[in-house]
């Protein structure tokens, strides 16, 4: 009974995170966003979304009854979990990088192009890894 809401929440959280990081990557790359404020606001949502993704992901596994690591499915899950751990490591560095940029510059001023480029790359890398996770999730869902 709880499986459907949990799965829906998982997909929605993923959509928000992939969409948000992609929009920020593109916006910093093109200069549409020039200040730090939108990224700082998004980071609150990002980490909240990560928490939701992990708890709903474990909930999904519980309803699926995952086979052992010796099967193809189990190996793919192992790879997916490892990629998620790597994504988390990269994301925490990105957020702290953003915070440290914020400590150096005036929040109300536009970002220096070097900082903008750094943020664009960081969000681009995050979005790319997220898309890889989506592909792995597709493989797990449909074989």
């Amino acid at each position, binding site marked *: 009974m709880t499986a459907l809401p949990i799965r829906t929440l998982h997909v929605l959280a993923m959509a928000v995170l992939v969409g948000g990081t992609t929009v920020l990557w593109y916006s910093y790359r093109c200069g549409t966003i020039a200040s730090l404020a939108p990224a700082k606001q998004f980071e609150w949502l990002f980490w909240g979304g990560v928490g939701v993704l992990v708890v709903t992901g*474990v909930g999904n596994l519980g309803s699926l009854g995952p086979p052992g690591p010796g099967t193809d499915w189990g190996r793919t899950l192992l790879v997916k979990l490892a990629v998620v751990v790597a994504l988390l490591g990269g994301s925490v560095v990105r*957020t702290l990088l953003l915070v440290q940029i914020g400590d150096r510059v005036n929040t109300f001023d536009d970002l220096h192009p070097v900082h903008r480029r750094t943020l664009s790359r960081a969000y681009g890398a995050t979005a790319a890894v997220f898309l890889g996770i989506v592909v792995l999730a597709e493989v797990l869902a449909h074989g």
Partner: protein
Amino acid sequence: MAEDQREQESMADNVSETEPARDSKQSSTRPVSLVTWTLATFDTVLFVLLGVLAVHASGGLADLLAGLNTLVGVAVFCYLWALFVLAVRWVHRRVSLDSAGVSTLVLHGVAAGSVTGVVFLLGLLAVALVSTLQSGGARPQSVLLVLLIGAGVAAVVGGVVGLLASLLDIAVYGLAGTLLPELGNERVTEPRRR
């Protein structure tokens, strides 16, 4: 941390109610800073994910999850998440990630981890034991014994988790600082476009 200090300073400032000033005021009234929220969530999800990875690699994930109720699992995760946020906030209010020494940070991390471990266990036991005690399924003396032994074990486990989490937090904060591009003598900011 500069972010925390700036937030505290901005609370004291009387700024006019322009749009950016209002945004600043809103962020300054937050009980948790972005760094605290980020590191606490990172530590929590990493703790859970590494556990899931280890159990899956050993082949016991299906059996473990089959015995868990989804709503109970969500509640336990949220409880753990809240405790991590409180623990990291406690550490960050006392020591600064960018200026305090590693040993000071680690000691605070171990202390916060030990307390968090005990509180986590007590929370779980309180829920589990109240119904058992009410139905007369357990004697209070044996409950007390379980509590004492469990609290000791939880304090040690929590201390180890706190130690590892604080070392990891210091490492990622340092790594972010290393990756921060240097601007040299260039202007740090550009004038706002009108």
